Every structure is written in structure tokens, then in C-alpha cells.
């Protein structure tokens, strides 16, 4: 699959995903913005394993950006733009607070996990791949590790309230 085919497929998927989150018009703008970034800023990235996660990352940034723009425009609370502070180039306090809160929630959720899930999560945080974790946990089948990880992930997501955000 070449770059053009990947981008075409990505456009369809990104549009469908954005439409499920925001309005159709805004979703189309969002998709266009993501593809523009991929086209203009990363023309050399051609591999599927690099292009797709890059697309996810750009998509997330664009969605957050659109969210902040909507806030600034007063689309949510209809406040005057004059009262809003000027944008900072670094992480704004809201983003910092959001990240801090997410980390705290994640820490609380991890504390509720079982021993096996914590162990599995620890190996992953240490950068171990699934085959390596399989050996570390003395399992003969890697599917066991996949299954355990899927269950632990769902458990962690449930402890987080159903969303990573």
C-alpha cells in the first residue's frame, strides 16, 4: 500500500471518526486540516506503521485546537472574546490541569488493578513488547498475554470512567 492509498483510506476513516464526535461541517474541516499537515509537513513519511500513528496524533491535536478555538469564539458559552486571555505558546493552565487530572485518575485506577494487571502494566511502561512480557511472565502462548492485556485495559478504562480523556 503506497502513501496515496494510505492517505485516501485515512481520509475516509478520519472523517467518519470526526463526524461521530463533532458536526459534519467541522468534521470535514478537521479532516482537511489533518491531511494538509500530513501532506505539507511530513511528505517523506510513507510507511504505514509511521503514517497512521502520525495521523492519529495530528488528528488529536487538531481536535483539541478546534475545541479551544470554539471556546475562544464563544461557541460554548457565548462570552465576549475581549474577556478571554491571550493565547500562550506553551501549554495553557487548562491543558496542564487537564493532564494533571488525567494522570491522577490514571494513578487511582492503576491502584485498583489486580496484581497481574499491575505487573503487565509495569512491563509495558518499561517498554517491554508482548513477546518479551510473555517470557517474563512464563507463558507459553502470546495469546494469553494479549488476552490478559485486553482485560486489564478494559478494567483500567472502567476505573477511569470509560474514557482516557
Amino acid at each position, binding site marked *: 500500500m503506497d502513501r496515496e492509498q494510505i492517505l485516501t483510506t485515512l481520509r475516509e476513516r478520519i472523517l467518519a471518526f470526526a463526524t461521530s464526535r463533532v458536526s459534519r461541517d467541522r468534521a470535514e474541516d478537521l479532516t482537511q486540516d489533518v491531511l494538509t499537515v500530513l501532506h505539507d509537513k511530513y511528505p517523506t513519511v510513507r510507511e504505514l506503521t509511521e503514517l497512521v500513528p502520525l495521523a492519529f496524533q495530528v488528528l488529536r491535536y487538531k481536535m483539541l485546537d478546534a475545541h479551544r478555538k470554539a471556546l475562544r469564539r464563544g461557541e460554548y458559552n457565548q462570552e465576549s472574546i475581549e474577556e478571554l486571555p491571550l493565547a500562550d505558546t506553551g501549554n495553557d493552565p487548562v491543558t496542564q490541569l487537564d493532564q494533571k487530572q488525567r494522570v491522577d485518575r490514571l494513578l487511582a485506577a492503576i491502584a485498583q488493578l489486580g*496484581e497481574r494487571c499491575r505487573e503487565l502494566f*509495569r512491563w509495558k511502561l518499561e517498554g517491554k513488547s508482548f513477546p518479551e512480557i510473555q517470557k517474563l511472565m512464563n507463558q507459553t502462548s502470546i495469546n494469553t498475554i494479549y488476552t490478559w492485556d485486553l482485560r486489564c485495559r478494559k478494567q483500567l478504562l472502567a476505573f477511569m470512567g470509560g474514557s*482516557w480523556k
Partner: protein
Amino acid sequence: MSEHDLEKLLGGFAADTLTPAEKQQLYSAALQDQELFNSLADEQALKELLADPVVRRRLLHAVQETGSTIDRDPASWLNWFRRPAGLAWAGGLAAAVFAVVLGTNVYRESLRQAGRSVAIEEESARTAPTPAPSEPQPASPPIGEPRLKAQANRKLADAPGKEAHTAKKAKQETEMTAKSNEGHATTYPEPDVLRERSPSTPRIFAQSKEDVPDSADQERASVPLTSALVPAPANIPATAAPTGQVGSALSARSLFYGDTEEFTSELMIAEQERSRSAKQFERLEQKKGLSRASQTGNLAGSTKPLGIRYSLVIHGMEGTHDERDARAPIQADSTDLMIEANQDGFFQVWGDDGALQPHLLFPLTEQDPVSSRLIAYQLRRIPILAVYHTITIRFSRMPFGTFSSKDLVEMNRSQLGQLQESSTATGASGSQELAIYVVNQDPSVGMLVVRIPIHQP
């Protein structure tokens, strides 16, 4: 790997720990599957969080700290029990403990049963005319020994560590009982008829002189020993178990000698059942208008079951061993009924010759008093003519009233719940004694009726 299985790679996507092959599979599938794509897009938030080295280090530290904390936490035991292996261990341990407890109980029960002389005595009485000393009976006392000595022997066998203390205590109790028996003997002398006959009457006890401290028995001990026969032991099982029997392990002899601890444990179930119907029983008694209130109160306090021990003595066999079996005919004018009770009470002896209604043999008159006092563990000798087919002994804690037809009916049906056991012992001079122990298993029952069929020549 199917699309469903590819979902399992999502965890690796967030932690960025997927291998190149896994990434290829996952992203190719995501481009084909919108749901998987949406999941990956949602997972991006976590991936972004975990991509921050500071956050990652913090999480790692938290995971390790939580693990070590939980290891020290008592709740980790609960987690251990939740595991299948933990449950298996706990279940196995519980089963092992249960098996050990059960095995210990069974072993104790078997030891206790082995200590009893019931089966062995019965066997020796049936098979051998002169019973050989049975090996499993070290704790069982000889027949003629006082009951306290027998209890002391049992305790010695059960608790070897307390031998000295128990033996000393038993000796003291034996001496006290001997003195008490002497007192009883002087307070309640035997009737003149018996006293006249006493010097010429042979003694049936197989016990030695030093075992019998009371004066009455010493007087009898001077008489040559002869054999004593149970009239028809073949008709009576060694441990007869009529209706109402609590457990086959109960021994009439042990109950007679007041092994109340054993009796209490054996009767525990029966007592529970009896307590349920206790109120109904008392209501019934009140309806009948019987004035047994005080009597019931007295009986309620008594936990010892009523029991008697009897045997028949054949005269004219001085110096010789009676080798006749228990079915042997009883010669006229040479038979004495020897009776002994395990507690103070009143008794009557009735004779039935088959032709007339049973009539009172002892006491001699049907006028007042109609019953004779019997002191606990004091032997009484009643002369019996051989013309009777059946001899009936009535023993009660309360004095008997005037005989009525109701008593006649009661005599025929009062043997329910009674435990009988025959016992054989060899005396010092080689004489042999067969005695029958009859005990009512219900301690609240205040009367015993024993029917003794006599074989006619």
C-alpha cells in the same frame, strides 16, 4: 490474527510496545475497520499521556509502590484466597483438618468401645464354662469389686498421667463407701427369715475378703463358695436392646456402676429429643391427675439410671465347681435370688407358677409394708422355691402401694427401655458367677421390672 484479536493489540499501541509486525497488522486492520480505527483514535489520549517521560516514570513508580504496599496489606490475603490455587490450598487444608478431627474421634470411640467388656464378657459366657481372662479388658474390673474401685481402674487406664492421684482418690472413696455400707447395714437389717438362713446360705460373691469391707459380706464370706447361675441367660441377649435403647455401645454394667459421664454423652441425643416432648408429657401427667409433681422433681435431679444386679445361687455345691450350663434345671429348696441395686429404693419379688395370678413372694405379707427397702450396693438374698415359672422383681425409688390390677399391667409392659447384660466372673476359689445387670436407660424412670423365667426340670 482475526479482527477481534487485533483489538488485543490496543494496549500495546498506547504503551508503544508493539513489535513492527504487530504494528503492521494493527494499522492495516484499522484502515479497513472503522471501529478499530475509532478505538485507536481514542487510545491516542492515553498514548500521549504515556509518551511523557515524567508521567511514565511517575506511573511506574506508583505501580511498583502499590505492589509492595499490597504485599504488606492484609487485603493481599483476600486476593490470595480469590485465586484458584489459593482456594484449592484452603480447601485442601480444611479437608485435612476435618479428616484429622474425624479420625481422632473415631479412634477415641474405638478405644472406648474396646475398653468395654460387653462383647467380650458375652462371648466368654457363651463359649467357655470357665472364662479365660480376656485381654482387651484391662480396664474392666472383676465382677465382685466395688464400683468405685472399678471406676478407679477405668480412670487409671484412661489417664495414665494421673495414676497416682486417681488411685489415691479411688482408695479414699472406697473406704468411705465401705463405712457407708456398714452404716446402711445397721440401719436396715435383713428380715429375720433371711438372717436365720444367712449363716448356712452359700455366698455367691466371687470377690475376695479384702475387697468386701462390710460386716454383712464378711459374715457371708466365711461360708464356702458355690456357683451361681443365671436362670435363663440364653433367652436374654448379653446386652439386650429392647425398644428405647439409646445406643448399642451402652453397657448395662457400666451404667449400673454409675459411669454417668459415658452415659451422659451417649444420651445427649436422646435427651434433646426428650426435651422437646417434655412439656407435652407434663401436661399429660397433669391431666391424669397423678400426684407426681414432687416425684418428678426428685427424679429430674437424679441423672443416674435405675439399675439392679441379680443372680440365682444354687446350694449344695460346696467345694465343687458347677459346670452346668445356664439352662440347667434349678433344684427345689436350693435356690436363692441375690439382688443388688445401684441406688437406694424399694423392691418386691413376685412369683408366677402359671396357675394363679402372680403373688408376692417378698416381703412375705401383702399388708403394710408391701415393699422392702434396698440399700445401694448392698446385697440381699431372697429364698426362692422352684415351683415358679417366672420370678418378677419390681424395684422403685418410691415405696410401692397396695397391689392393684394396674400394677399387674405395668409389670407386663415396664421392661421397655431396659438394658440387660450378663456377666461372668471367676471367684478366688475357682467358683463361677453369672450375674445379670438390668438398667433402665431413662434416668427419669423411677421403677424397674425384671421378669426372670425359671427353667423347670
